[in-house]
């Protein structure tokens, strides 16, 4: 799909966007707490708190509230290369104790135009290796993706 996508997206969630904004603006929006609160919310949830140490090994903490409960997320930064790459481990109630990995790659297509690719995987070992993908397995099973 794009040359800037991470090597392997098997068993992973992948999202791609093209934004009419400078790459620095997009990168900052990923890490600045006040900006993050303006987009990280959901239909039923608000961002109560977001803290991030902007360096490799730095930690982040994200607290969302909604549906009568709190949703804490936390992780550690594994890649920090301004303005092209930000990646971190991701633990939340929905990962049920499993450490997952979120990898965001930014590419400046031109001034004022930036491509973002996000890959969220629960299988760290598939990350850089070619592998038969989940979608392909489901096709072989005759299961239609929902």
């Amino acid at each position, binding site marked *: 799909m794009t040359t800037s996508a991470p090597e392997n997206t098997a*068993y*992973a*969630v992948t*999202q791609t*966007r093209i*934004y*009419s*904004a400078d790459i620095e*603006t*997009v990168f*900052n*929006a*990923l890490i600045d707490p006040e*900006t993050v609160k*303006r*987009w*990280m*919310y*959901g*239909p039923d949830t608000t961002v109560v708190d977001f803290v991030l140490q902007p360096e490799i090994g730095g930690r982040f903490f994200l607290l969302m509230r909604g549906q009568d409960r709190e949703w804490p997320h936390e992780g550690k930064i594994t890649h920090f290369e301004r303005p092209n790459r930000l990646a971190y481990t991701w633990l939340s109630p*929905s*990962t*049920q*104790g*499993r450490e997952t990995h979120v990898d965001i790659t930014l590419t400046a297509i031109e001034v004022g135009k*930036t491509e*973002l690719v*996000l890959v*969220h995987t*629960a*299988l*760290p*070992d*598939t990350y850089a*290796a070619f*592998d*038969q993908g*989940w979608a*392909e*397995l*489901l096709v*072989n*099973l005759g*299961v239609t*993706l*929902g």
Partner: protein
Amino acid sequence: MLDTTFHALADPTRRTLLSKVVVGRQRVTDLAAEFPMSLNAVSKHIQVLERAGLVVRERVGRTHFIDSDLTGFAEVQAWLSQMQRFWAIRLDQLGDVVEQGE
């Protein structure tokens, strides 16, 4: 349970095993012959896949078969769908924020 399923998938041998099973029920001995390891080692991998609800074992006489178990598949698929929606919503909102100009 989700962690058990992801743990099962986080091994390339088990993913290869699974890819062979999803196209149809397999005789365990036939499967094992395709891997450069002992039948015992393959059996251990199959056990992990079984506990994860990804395969189910069946014995017909003295022959052991394994087949896909949709329970584990459904669980992983639900997680993937949930996270796709999670990020899809937020990345659209991120676009609204960065394109407003700062």
